[in-house]
């Protein structure tokens, strides 16, 4: 343990320890540090070994001050830190701690040096893999058309003839009023005549509504297909895990089938938005 360090200028006492936290790469060793009380900079040294044929790594430094994690600012670090650091002995990082730490007495400081694989520098700008904007004209159009057809259908289903028939002739209707029922010999009753008109309106309305629902289903299906295509494109081009999965399954159970086993066979469709 490298003990108390006093800064001459600020008379601050700090307890420092360096902890080289090994990542899964596990190629950092012999971590050491030195604190220069005059410049108030910490020099961290470490050995960085090759991993297979790879010589270059991304080195980062993290700190914990009095239990509080801190990532040193990029401007405060210089030396063998960052992307494309070559493996070698006694690599050095200089940390201008004053840029990141407000000195307090007896502060305990832990420093972690980690090594990861190099990563391409992200380039500013638009999404590197732009995909075509989804065509919303068809789903929205289908929604409006389908909705209109359903409204028109419902209107037909509740036409004046239908209402009149229900109130005058349909004893099952909540609006039925028996006093309006006419009975007249062998001639078609008013209810018979009303029934034909009401049925015509009701059937027409039902058909319109069903067509409306169908149009909406087509619109929704179109939208889902677009999303699936987009996901396929991303998965296919990025080579990542499939976001669309269709898994056949077969399970055998014996709980609900007396004296035997019952199987469930089907397809499980998963789409992760």
């Amino acid at each position: 343990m490298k003990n108390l360090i006093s800064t001459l200028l600020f008379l601050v006492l700090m307890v420092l320890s360096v902890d080289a936290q090994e990542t899964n790469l596990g190629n950092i060793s012999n971590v050491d540090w030195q604190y220069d009380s005059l410049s108030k900079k910490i020099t961290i040294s470490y050995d960085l070994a090759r991993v297979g044929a790879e010589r270059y790594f991304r080195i980062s430094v993290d700190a914990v001050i009095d239990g509080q994690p801190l990532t040193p600012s990029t401007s405060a670090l210089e030396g063998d830190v960052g992307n494309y650091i070559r493996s070698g002995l006694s690599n050095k990082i200089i940390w201008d701690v004053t840029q990141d730490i407000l000195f307090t007495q007896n502060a305990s400081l832990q420093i972690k040096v980690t090594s990861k694989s190099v990563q391409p520098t992200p380039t500013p700008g638009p999404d590197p893999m732009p995909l075509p904007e989804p065509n919303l004209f068809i789903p929205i159009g289908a929604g409006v058309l389908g909705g209109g057809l359903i409204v028109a259908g419902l209107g037909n289903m509740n036409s004046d003839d239908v209402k009149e028939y229900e109130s005058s002739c349909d004893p099952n209707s909540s609006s039925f009023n028996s006093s309006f029922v006419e009975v007249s010999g062998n001639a078609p009753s008013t209810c018979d005549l009303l029934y034909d008109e009401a049925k015509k309106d009701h059937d027409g309305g039902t058909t319109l509504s069903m067509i409306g629902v169908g149009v909406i289903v087509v619109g929704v299906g179109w939208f889902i297909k677009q999303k699936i295509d987009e996901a396929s494109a991303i998965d296919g081009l990025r080579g990542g895990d499939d976001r669309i999965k269709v898994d056949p399954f077969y399970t055998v159970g014996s709980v609900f089938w007396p004296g035997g086993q019952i199987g469930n066979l089907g397809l499980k469709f998963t789409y992760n938005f």
Partner: protein
Amino acid sequence: MKNLLLTFIIGCTSYSVLAQDANIPNSLQKLLDTDFFTQYDEIRQRAHTSVKAFKKLSAEENYSEEDLEIVKDAYMASAEKFNAILVGVKNDLLNKRSRKMLIRFPDAYSSKLEKELDYANEYYEQTFRKEIARVTNGEILGLSFMELLPVVIKGVKIAIQVINKFKAEVRKYNDAMLQQHLVEKYKFQEWEKLL
């Protein structure tokens, strides 16, 4: 007699070369003639030239074994990144789903390749070129690809048009064919082979 023999040998060689070219399907040849591949070839030639120049200089100078090893490793690692792109293109051409997607979304595929090329180029710049300049004290800087990359990227969409045009033929490509004509022909060569 000697002349006759020479003519015969030249004739056989020419026939052999022609026969080899004839093995490449027309669509694949058209694909390889696009800017993507011609400029990619220019990129690898530049890398090869840089390696050869360094090797020549290192024969005259007394660089340490460690430095020689570092430059070699930096080249090989960069080469691996570029070669992985070619293998990726090969796999995409062989994979039905990828083929379909790259035809449907040429912009996205172009961006994907751009990203991969940028990374390979960055790696080459940050490792091989940096090391070669350090070891030779700036005598050799290594050739840059920077101005070629946009041309290569632009070539992707034209290449996709060719793939789309010859869809039926492309479907018949096999691994061995693409490995020979696309990967082996355009890959960055091993350090030892560059003399």
